[in-house]
């Protein structure tokens, strides 16, 4: 083998504390190293040109560059050697900047260490073999999981881009949390009015297949070729026949069914259409409350339905869809705030969540848009908003900020004043977080124009004062004194958590999630939409707290990623994946058992059971290689022999 070594000065970044020329000189003494130099800037255009020239001139078949971190420039130099006709995997890098020159000033020790790291790279290179990527077909369809505003945006953008979309929504209607909101900040425009048209677009778009009341059951396959099993829950109504006329909901005798869409601020019927603008506008029976399904007698809806759509014996149905990419947009749920016993733990009817308050304010809500106290139906005059209930609170395991509560609390305070002009609102806050466009101005309006009293501090105790009102005790940390407010209604800005079932979905999708169930993006800053599983993208709050504009933006971003992926007819797989030596394999199945990606499957070779790697699924972690006792499965480019060569280069007493 003929190896060329380039020890980069990186200006004075490396040369300042490493004797690069000496390292190059040492390198020349090693086996197979035929050329070693120490250029000033290897990554610059002349530096790369010099590498190409050296490859030609010295007939190099492998190159080592010692410079910065391979996480920075490995792709750059791989392209360089490829331009000169080498295979891009016949290249290794030694990190002598971040790991050497920048962390110590001892020239002698640094030079010695740099030389050893270069030796390491040379030894690894000596065991490198050319690798070639394989190509495979792409199914140009996308699955969007979650029909909130982020999912709707992603679905519409993909559909507009010509990609067929399968949209799966767990609830009976799409729209998510945004559909429940009365108004949106900072413009105070009607939430349903801006979301409604988008929902209708989803229903009407020829490229979108919508499954409501459905959940993802199982995902298999890999980027470009996923197979998804979707469970369509029994709705007990044949949606092909249901016209959404609503006659059934008027006659249903089971009128005390908790109204999930209205956040249990009101009741509804056992057969129901979530709200007037629901998409799909189809009736659904709640089997827990339906008299026919629980007691076996009633059947009123079946009698009344003009199209005969009621099916009491309906069963869940599994449908299978083939897609090439998946967008997860599963949103959030409110945390269970009843852990706050000092706020009554859910026992006081006039202590409600902000989302319940939205429903009280909404014209489509249970009170027709009149703000009244749940306990006695009277109009509240003193309203206390408590922020950060379950946000930034380690004591309940919620250390993170829920992001948008400061803003909607300001909005709710403003709307309260609009609804009840003689009311007074108080807001207990920890910090006002209003960094968006026109956001800070908005909160100032709540304070200055609407006379909302903002009190910086936490609420320690809320209790009924025996006179039908609530006493709210808290602290004003700016004035350094205790505060006690008599409130008619207390609204808690309850913190968010990942949507129910998010970790289970993440495991089906084979993506990571954090301690709180939020999905992990591939890189916090530079890959906020991608996940570690190729072809799976994120949109909206499922990835972390964000408000509507940010969710919409990420929905579009995810769609852009999908369209970008589908712009190619064939995809290339990374050749740095595991490979089975079919002779050595004894089919003991240990690798199969622990592969995090299900990328290994059983096969047969000359009548003997063996395993094989599904090249497109393997992500290249190498867990199988360290599991296989006979070394029969080797991660390409990080084989046992390569790592052993590195170990032996370092330790050979």
């Amino acid at each position: 083998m003929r190896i060329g070594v380039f020890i980069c000065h990186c200006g004075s970044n490396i040369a300042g504390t490493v004797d690069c020329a000496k390292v190059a000189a040492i390198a020349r003494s090693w086996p197979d190293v035929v050329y070693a130099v120490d250029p000033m800037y290897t990554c610059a255009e002349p530096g790369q040109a010099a590498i190409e020239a050296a490859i030609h001139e010295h007939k190099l078949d492998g190159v080592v560059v010692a410079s910065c971190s391979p996480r920075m420039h490995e792709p750059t130099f791989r392209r360089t050697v490829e331009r000169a006709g080498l295979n891009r995997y016949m290249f290794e890098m030694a990190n002598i900047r971040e790991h050497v020159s920048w962390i110590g000033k001892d020239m002698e020790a640094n030079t010695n260490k740099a030389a050893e790291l270069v030796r390491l790279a040379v030894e690894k290179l000596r065991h490198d073999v050319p690798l070639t990527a394989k190509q495979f077909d792409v199914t140009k369809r996308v699955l969007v999981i979650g029909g909130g505003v982020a999912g709707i945006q992603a679905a519409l953008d993909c559909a507009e881009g010509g990609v067929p979309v399968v949209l799966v929504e767990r609830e009976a209607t799409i729209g998510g949390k945004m559909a429940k909101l009365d108004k949106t900040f900072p413009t105070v425009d009607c939430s349903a009015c801006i979301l409604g048209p988008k929902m209708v677009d989803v229903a009407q778009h020829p490229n979108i297949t919508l499954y409501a009341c459905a959940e993802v059951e199982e995902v298999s396959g890999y980027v470009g070729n996923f197979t998804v099993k979707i469970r369509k829950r029994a709705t007990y109504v044949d949606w092909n026949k249901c016209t959404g006329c609503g006659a059934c909901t008027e006659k249903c005798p089971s009128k005390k069914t908790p109204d999930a869409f209205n956040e249990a601020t009101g009741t509804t019927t056992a057969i129901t259409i979530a709200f007037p603008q629901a998409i799909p506008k189809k009736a659904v029976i709640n089997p827990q409350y339906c008299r026919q399904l629980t007691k076996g007698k009633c059947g009123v809806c079946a009698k009344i339905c003009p199209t005969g759509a009621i099916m009491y014996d309906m069963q869940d149905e599994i449908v299978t869809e083939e897609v090439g990419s998946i967008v997860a947009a599963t949103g959030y749920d409110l945390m269970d705030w009843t852990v706050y016993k000092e706020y009554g733990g859910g026992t006081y009817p006039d202590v409600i969540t902000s989302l319940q308050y939205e429903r009280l304010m909404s014209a489509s809500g249970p009170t027709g848009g009149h703000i009244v106290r749940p306990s006695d139906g009277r109009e509240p005059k003193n309203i206390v908003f408590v922020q950060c209930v379950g946000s930034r609170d380690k004591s309940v395991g919620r250390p993170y900020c829920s992001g948008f509560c400061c803003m909607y609390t300001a909005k709710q305070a403003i709307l309260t004043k609009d609804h009840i002009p003689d009311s007074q609102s108080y807001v207990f806050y920890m910090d006002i977080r209003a960094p968006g466009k026109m956001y800070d101005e908005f909160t100032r309006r709540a304070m200055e124009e609407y006379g909302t009293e903002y009190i910086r501090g936490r609420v320690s105790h809320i209790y009924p004062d025996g006179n039908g009102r609530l006493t709210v005790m808290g602290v004003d940390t700016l004035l350094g004194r205790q505060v006690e407010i008599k409130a008619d209604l207390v609204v808690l800005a309850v913190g968010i958590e990942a949507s129910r079932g998010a970790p289970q979905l993440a495991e089906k999708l084979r993506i990571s999630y954090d301690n709180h169930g939020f999905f992990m993006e591939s890189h916090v800053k530079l890959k906020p939409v991608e996940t570690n599983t190729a072809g799976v993208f994120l949109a909206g709050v499922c990835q972390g707290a964000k408000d509507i504009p940010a969710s919409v933006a990420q929905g579009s971003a995810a769609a852009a990623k999908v369209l970008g992926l589908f712009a190619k007819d064939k995809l290339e797989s990374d050749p740095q994946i595991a490979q089975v030596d079919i002779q050595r394999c004894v089919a003991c199945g240990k690798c199969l058992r622990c592969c995090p990606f299900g990328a290994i499957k059983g096969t047969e070779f000359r009548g003997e059971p063996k395993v094989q790697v599904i090249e497109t699924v393997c992500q290249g972690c190498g867990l199988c290689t360290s599991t296989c006792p006979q070394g029969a499965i080797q991660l390409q480019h990080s084989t046992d022999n390569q790592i052993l060569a590195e170990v032996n280069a370092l330790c050979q007493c």
Partner: protein
Amino acid sequence: MNVAYYPGCSAKGSSKDYEISTQAVCRALNITLEEIPGWNCCGSTPAHAVDTELSAALCARNLDIAASQGAKLLLTPCPSCLSNLRAASQRMEKPEFRQRVNELLDTPAAETFPEVLSVMQGIAMQLDKENLALRVKKTLKGLRLAAYYGCLMSRPADRMRFEDPENPQLMEDLLTACGAEMVDFPLKTACCGAAFGIPERAMTARNSGRILELAARLDVDAVITACPLCQMNLDLRQTQAGRALNTRFHMPVVYFTQMLGLALGLPRKQLGLNKLAVSADKLLGKLDDPRLADAEGGQQS
């Protein structure tokens, strides 16, 4: 059940009624209290805030005597004493801390101390609700009561072990078993301000007033306490508290042991009810009224 008993300093002075009713009730329930011979202050003075080792040494001496008598369990009526004794036991589990405390003592403390519980927890441990109900001779039916634990009894949660520190239920369980109607009293663990009774009288009056006011609104016959300081504060300072809130209170503030004693049919003289500043005569009268006792609980005359 034989247990060591640490009365605490209040028991011998301001809360003598708590002490004698505790003794009487425990006797009636076959809990033999053996007062620690030569016990000293628990350190619930400024000591515990100024010097944890000194404070622990004070407790350690008491615990050591109890341990040397072979006690496995120690009861104390006072939440403040309970807090200090438990804190000292917990801290002494650390060898370095134990060593420093031992240096302050004449002889090193015993390796293991008896478990420390409040009298309330001790009674609940001795017999459950059903068994207590069987012992009731004079039902408290017809009485509407507010359980007031005070700020110390249930906090800090891991030290005091009263389950939910914001909403303890033990006193309610005991008195419900005796037939009383217990209201949901949201201020049950609020501070009455007793600790600032001298330097910050206005604040104390406000805090006590808030508790008394809510109790009055909820129309209870008495506020039931488990803390010598709370009882003294709420009982003695009703006039000041009333003045701060522009009102007048007449709310009996009774120890839970006194109520238990009544229910167990103990002679009223043994319960120290005559020591209350705000007379409990009306409440006692209700208990004696056969019509009320028969009526469905909770109705007011």
